[in-house]
């Protein structure tokens, strides 16, 4: 069935490697099936005399009944208070096979993606997307949805990122997860995630995209709760899933509106028809705002960002792949994919930019005071996603996607580096039986002596994210901020009004927020590096002896990502830094997809900064980044830090930041508790128990029983009674006749 696809006749990509694009998600799916079957086999069955039982029961904090039949399958593997702590060391019997299948299917996908990329480059200019239709999925009246994939420059770019970074993270996971009993299950989920992610970016219509969209949400849920026997992890998974449902509601509404007004959901059809909307009209604005609600859920923007920091409960490679590099950028991709719609709706675009900017600053302030190394990175991800939304919000779709690419490199590197640190800390604690928190920076310090590779690579990523030239983050961040600044002067956005405020004022405010977030980014990233790698070591005398660099399967991917983080900016060099035709490579590449829409926002002109304005913009960005790093270096004193156990409680505003502005608590009070109260008091006790159970189910039974009782009482068996009734009846009838 899959092979019977019809291809647009005459498309130049037909017959090239691109014709195999259906294989891209199918390969990881195959890996999922194989690893999933392996995961059904328990890691190892421990007998009653097995010494590991003691460890298992001990790890479970001696929970009653846990030691009786430790299956060590998946139930016994998560006992620590934190996700990565103290899991039982049980290597799965078929770990070797899973090691082979998991990364290899990804590498094969990546190889195919590269072949497709080369085929596309060989074509030169390609204006029309390459659409492959496989079968009719939902034929229902006017609604004709095909299972179809589409390849264009935008999806090609995403495919390369997903399979490329995905392969590296799979290889890293081989080392990181090696001693976990759920090893094949981990790779099964990871493969499934990549399969769905590829469906998301390859889908040729909104519904196919939505399949991938929901699929990655499912895999995210499964992987956040990977160590599900710890309730906190399972809760974090549920939180992510439920918060995402709110966003998905928005995306669904946007899809309904699109179909109701355009009669099609294909990207090709929608893009062609979207320009017929009234420019800046209420309809297209509504569609875009609902769509942005979906993006805010998936990409963790205010007000739906709260799930992402909790998602760090999952294993660290998951945080790197799903919650930094790929899935959370799906919202940015969706906006770039729907750029025709957004460029028609300046008010919605301004909303995107404002939400992005506020999120960038807000998350950055929280990142300043987190102690958990992964939480710092989580808020940093939220903040950087905000940057991407600023980019796509102001109609600089290329800049937003460029930051997506560079962020995928340096944030994956940061997360994997933190994974490497946690792995070392955890291994050291495991040796000495220490139960301290292996993710708390107060327990680290001075790690550069023990892990030089990780130290150097993470500094590269830190400089990249802070925006220090010539590392990748500088170019993408500078392009976003520059785009905002230029569009504040002359664009459809500047002419529009947002909540009564002139668009150009809003954009200048967005620019200011972006600069402030850049400053904070530099500060908190430097703070993380100083506390983790510099100063004296605080992990303990015994533990120090066991701190070592992670194996090559883990450092290898780090090195590759380090190189990419350093030179990733070359993808889209501005003209002043370009050499030999390398100027704006990504911009030219994406031009067929988003070019027209960018021009629509900028009133048909390519915004060019005058020489001194450009110098000012770049100078401000670099100065802010350097200032941030200097503030952190001067102000922070790693030497004064004490381990977590001896740390005093934070006071004042620091406390507010550490507790994340109490947003979770506020949501609890405002949303969760009323919902639970309503559900419990009205829906459960009232409707379900009272009305349905009480009145309808038991009530009808009571009625039948009552009627039966009356009948049974009447049928006394006494002939005399019957005669009485008969006579009374006769008299009544006669009486009725007489009276009439």
């Amino acid at each position: 069935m899959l092979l019977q696809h019809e291809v647009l006749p005459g498309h130049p990509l037909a017959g090239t490697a691109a014709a195999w694009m259906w294989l891209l998600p199918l390969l990881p799916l195959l890996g999922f099936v194989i690893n999933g079957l392996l995961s059904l086999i328990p890691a190892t069955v421990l007998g009653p005399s097995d010494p590991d039982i003691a460890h298992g029961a001990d790890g479970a904090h001696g929970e009653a009944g846990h030691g009786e039949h430790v299956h060590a399958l998946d139930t016994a593997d998560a006992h620590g208070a934190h996700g990565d702590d103290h899991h039982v060391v049980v290597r799965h019997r078929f770990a070797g096979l899973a090691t082979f299948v998991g990364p290899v299917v990804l590498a094969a996908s990546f190889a195919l993606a590269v072949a497709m990329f080369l085929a596309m480059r060989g074509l030169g200019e390609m204006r029309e997307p390459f659409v492959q239709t496989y079968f009719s999925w939902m034929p229902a009246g006017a609604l004709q949805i095909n299972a179809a994939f589409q390849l264009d420059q935008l999806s090609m770019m995403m495919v390369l990122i997903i399979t490329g970074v995905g392969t590296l993270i799979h290889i890293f996971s081989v080392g990181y997860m090696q001693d976990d009993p759920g090893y094949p299950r981990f790779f099964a989920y990871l493969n499934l995630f990549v399969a769905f992610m590829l469906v998301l970016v390859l889908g040729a219509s909104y519904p196919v995209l939505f399949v991938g969209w929901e699929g990655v949400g499912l895999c995210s849920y499964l992987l956040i709760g990977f160590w599900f026997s710890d309730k906190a992890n399972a809760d974090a998974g549920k939180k992510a899933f439920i918060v995402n449902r709110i966003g998905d509601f928005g995306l669904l509404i946007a899809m309904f509106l699109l179909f109701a007004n355009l009669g099609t959901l294909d990207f090709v059809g929608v893009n062609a028809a979207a320009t017929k909307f009234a420019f800046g009209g209420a309809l297209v604005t509504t569609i875009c705002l609902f769509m942005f609600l979906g993006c805010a859920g998936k990409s963790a923007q205010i007000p739906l960002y709260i799930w992402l920091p909790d998602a760090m409960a999952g294993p660290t490679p998951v945080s790197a792949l799903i919650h930094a590099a790929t899935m959370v950028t799906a919202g940015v991709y969706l906006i770039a994919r729907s750029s025709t719609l957004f460029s028609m709706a300046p008010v919605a675009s301004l909303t995107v930019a404002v939400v992005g900017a506020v999120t960038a600053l807000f998350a950055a302030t929280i990142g300043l005071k987190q102690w958990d190394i992964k939480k710092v990175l989580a808020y940093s991800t939220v903040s950087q996603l905000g940057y991407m939304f600023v980019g796509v919000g102001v109609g600089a779709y290329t800049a937003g996607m460029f930051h997506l690419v560079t962020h995928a490199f340096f944030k994956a590197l940061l997360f994997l580096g933190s994974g490497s640190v946690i792995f070392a800390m955890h291994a050291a604690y495991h040796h000495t039986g220490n139960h301290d928190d292996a993710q708390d920076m107060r327990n680290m310090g001075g790690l550069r002596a023990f892990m030089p590779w990780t130290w150097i690579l993470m500094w590269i990523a830190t400089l990249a994210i802070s925006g220090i030239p010539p590392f990748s983050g500088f170019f993408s961040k500078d392009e976003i901020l520059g785009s905002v600044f230029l569009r504040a002067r002359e664009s459809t956005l500047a002419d529009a009004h947002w909540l009564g405020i002139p668009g150009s004022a809003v954009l200048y405010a967005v620019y200011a927020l972006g600069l402030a977030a850049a400053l904070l980014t530099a500060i908190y990233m430097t703070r993380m590096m100083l506390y983790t790698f510099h100063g004296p070591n605080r992990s303990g005398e015994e533990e120090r002896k066991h701190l070592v660099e992670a194996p090559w399967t883990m450092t290898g991917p780090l090195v590759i990502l380090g190189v990419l983080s350093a030179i990733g900016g070359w993808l889209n060099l501005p003209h002043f830094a370009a050499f030999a035709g390398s100027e704006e490579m990504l911009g030219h590449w994406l031009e067929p997809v988003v070019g027209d829409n960018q021009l629509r926002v900028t009133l048909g002109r390519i915004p060019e900064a005058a020489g001194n304005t450009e110098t000012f913009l770049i100078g401000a960005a670099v100065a802010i980044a350097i200032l941030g790093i200097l503030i952190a270096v001067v102000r922070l004193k790693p030497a004064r830090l004490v381990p977590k156990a001896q740390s005093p409680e934070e006071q004042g505003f620091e406390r507010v930041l550490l507790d994340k502005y109490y947003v979770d608590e506020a949501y609890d009070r405002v949303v969760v508790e009323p919902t639970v109260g309503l559900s419990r008091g009205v829906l459960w006790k009232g409707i379900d128990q009272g009305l349905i159970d009480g009145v309808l189910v038991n009530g009808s039974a009571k009625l039948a029983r009552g009627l039966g009782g009356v009948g049974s009482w009447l049928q006394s068996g006494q002939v005399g009674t019957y005669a009485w009734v008969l006579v009374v009846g006769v008299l009544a009838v006669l009486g009725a006749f007489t009276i009439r």
Partner: protein
Amino acid sequence: MLAEALFFSAVLFTIGVIGVLTRRNAIIIFMCVELMLNAVNLTFVAFSRAYGAAGQIFVFFAMTVAAAEAAVGLAIIIALFRHKQTVNLQHINILKG
């Protein structure tokens, strides 16, 4: 003349009904039922004097059926008495499900 005959038969019928309703003894109830039958017979006869002989024919039929019924009814009462050692209808409620 007709009015008196109808009044008399109504009184007889009512006595029969009251007897059926208030008494417990099956024999007495049976006799009261006969009383009601004969009250009706009396009505028939009274009307036949006024409107023609068809009523008389009904009386003959009714008396025949009543005789047959009396035979069957008494037989049932005897069978009941043999079974239950009583003809008090309060103790005979086997109709109750």
